[in-house]
């Protein structure tokens, strides 16, 4: 080869190498750009294309009553979702949705929402969650492409509306929305798991992998007794239908432990069939609603007077006028009495007498006793949305305030606070925090701290004197309709006029009727508070609320097998029959 050609070849090689190097450099630069600088963005794009991480909702814990009866349980059901494949014509997608509409009974609103999501080219669309097994089978028979099923848990309440307000609701994702379900949501719901779904180029799912196992929620045992709850709801419903009242609430408790055995509200709703409802139905009035208690509050007035030694059981009060003037205002009794002794003032529920008892106290002392009973503060019951009631500070009291407070006005309380008051008397002066959750089966110590809280509010002597007075209320006073054959009962009726904000005065037509009491007197097994709001026709606590107490207490005492104190004629007959049979 001549030198000329050798040089030419050399030159060409250099040029070629240069272009090759340039190409290589370009490649390397692009590679660095993709692999280093654009790495996070591109990785996210790829992951989005072929992977999908979804949470696994753990099975929610079961709620039991005190005897192990199921009150709420989650069971697996199927949910239907749609993953449209790329390039699938819009018409075909709509056709599929229309087929689903027939099987799943989708409403027009649901259908419009689905169509809107399909138009937006969303890759995952919920069609309907938590469907019935029959509908699931019908859908599977249709074998529609892109329609998949996912197992989810659905909350079932086997007793429908029993203890509805107490148990509360869960939302579609099984998160507590009210009641016990909300309060104990962290314990009941467990810990979420996570699974990975791998998809092919057409976004079809081909593999599931569990990344983190879900941790199931823990079971909860309540202090509620299904049977007593049933008695309570039935008695309340009957009273509500008879009186045509706006709403009513009843709480039944075991005073010696503070355990709530039943908590009922009316109107109520079916937990398995939730529909949009007004707030007054949805709310647990037992802990949420503030009302002026009226005469049931005379228990506190009497306690304060006895505890302060400003009056005693033998003092007399002149109630013969039937009214009393306080700072230009007239307060009347429901009927004219003569001169009443201290116990008689409470037994016959004299406003004039109670005001005179209240006047014997100094304001600070009265204020401190009301505060000690827990008014104006939450009781600490383990339920959400508990109200504190309204109890004004001492420096805002008017001249009429002590008189108004003596008869249960100028103060707003909740039903649970009134129950707490009667529990203090039933426990001979000791207050226990009311509670609704017994313990957690798997972790018995979880709630132990909250269980024990005892505090002496009244001396044993004062409380015992009050027990005798309240027993007198039921034996010969305003509460005779609360008497139960074979058992001793102590209690107090209450009838309060409701404040009408439109006129700025107390109404003569709207009332709150109530009754608080316990039985048997010597060793109280049950304490009950009944509040009926705005009853029509008869409106006195003695006529409306006391019979509800009687009905619930008589059935519950028998159910709890509490021995009768006095042998009734029927018991004697039964005794004789048994003896004859034994012979």
């Amino acid at each position, binding site marked *: 080869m001549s030198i000329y050609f050798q040089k030419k070849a050399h030159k060409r090689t250099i040029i070629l190498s240069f272009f090759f190097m340039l190409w290589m450099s370009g490649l390397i630069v692009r590679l660095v750009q993709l692999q280093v600088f654009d790495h996070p963005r591109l990785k996210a794009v790829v992951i989005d294309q072929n992977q999908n991480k979804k949470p696994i909702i753990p099975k929610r814990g079961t709620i039991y009553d005190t005897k192990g*009866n*199921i009150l709420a*349980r989650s*069971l*697996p059901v199927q949910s239907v979702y749609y993953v449209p494949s790329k390039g699938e014509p819009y018409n075909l997608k709509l056709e599929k949705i229309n087929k689903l509409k027939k099987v799943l009974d989708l409403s027009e609103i649901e259908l419009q929402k689905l169509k809107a999501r399909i138009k937006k080219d969303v890759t995952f669309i919920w069609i309907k969650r938590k469907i019935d097994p029959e509908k699931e089978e019908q859908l599977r028979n249709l074998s529609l492409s892109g329609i998949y099923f996912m197992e989810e848990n659905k909350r*079932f309440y*086997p*007793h*429908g509306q*029993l203890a509805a307000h107490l148990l509360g609701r869960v939302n579609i994702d099984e998160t507590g929305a009210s009641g016990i379900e909300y309060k104990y949501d962290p314990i009941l719901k467990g810990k979420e798991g996570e699974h990975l779904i791998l998809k092919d180029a057409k976004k079809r799912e081909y593999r599931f992998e569990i990344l983190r196992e879900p941790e199931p929620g823990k079971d909860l045992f309540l202090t509620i007794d*299904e*049977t007593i709850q*049933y008695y309570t709801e039935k008695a309340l419903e009957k009273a509500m239908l008879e009186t045509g009242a706006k709403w009513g609430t009843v709480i039944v408790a075991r005073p010696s432990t503070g355990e709530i055995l039943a908590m009922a509200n009316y109107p109520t709703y079916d937990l398995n069939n939730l529909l949009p409802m007004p707030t007054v139905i949805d709310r647990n009035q037992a802990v949420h609603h503030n009302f002026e208690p009226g005469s049931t509050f005379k228990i506190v007035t009497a306690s304060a007077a006895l505890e302060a030694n400003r009056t005693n059981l033998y003092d007399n009060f002149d109630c013969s006028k039937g009214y009393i003037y306080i700072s230009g205002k007239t307060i009347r009794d429901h009927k004219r009495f003569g001169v009443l002794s201290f116990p008689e003032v409470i037994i016959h529920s004299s406003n004039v007498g109670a005001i005179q008892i209240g006047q014997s106290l100094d304001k600070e002392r009265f204020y401190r006793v009301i505060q000690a009973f827990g008014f104006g503060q939450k009781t600490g019951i383990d339920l959400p949305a508990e109200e504190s009631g309204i109890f004004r500070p001492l420096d805002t009291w008017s001249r009429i305030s002590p008189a108004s407070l003596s008869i249960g006005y100028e103060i707003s309380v909740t039903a649970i606070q009134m129950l707490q008051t009667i529990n203090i008397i039933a426990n001979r002066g000791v207050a226990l925090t009311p509670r609704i959750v017994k313990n957690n089966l798997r972790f018995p110590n979880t709630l132990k701290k909250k269980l024990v809280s005892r505090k002496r509010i009244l001396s044993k002597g004062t409380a015992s004197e009050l027990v005798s007075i309240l027993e007198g209320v039921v034996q010969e006073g305003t509460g005779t309709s609360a008497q139960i*054959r*074979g058992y001793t009962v102590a209690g107090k009726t209450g009838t309060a006029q409701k404040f009408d904000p439109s006129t700025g005065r107390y109404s003569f037509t709207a009332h709150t009727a109530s009754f608080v009491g316990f039985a048997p007197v010597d060793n109280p097994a049950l304490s009950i508070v009944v509040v009926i709001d705005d009853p029509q026709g008869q409106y006195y606590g003695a006529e409306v609320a006391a019979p509800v107490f009687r009905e619930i207490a008589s059935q519950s005492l*028998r159910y709890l*097998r*509490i*021995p*009768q104190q006095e*042998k*009734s004629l*029927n*018991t004697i*007959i*039964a*005794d004789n*029959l*048994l003896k004859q049979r034994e012979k």
Partner: protein
Amino acid sequence: MVRKKYTRNEITLVVFCTIFIILILTFYVWHQMESVRIGYEEGELEDKVLNLRKEVEKLELLKSSLLSLENVEKIAKEELKLVKPKEKQIVYDDFNP
């Protein structure tokens, strides 16, 4: 080249070793297959247990729903035509707590 003659014992040993190795390999393959089969069976049984547990939970819920006092009262009143006794119609024995 003189070919080495194997003794009868040597041949027996080789045959025996071969059979032994084949047996071990066969056992190993069988063992593996059995493990896989038992694994599948175990998985199936675990699924069965899980499904039965779910079924038990469902049945417990159904039982609870059927035995609810509301339901019992409804059947007593509507199907069996029973009526609630009046207070004086009930004769109580003394309760022993």
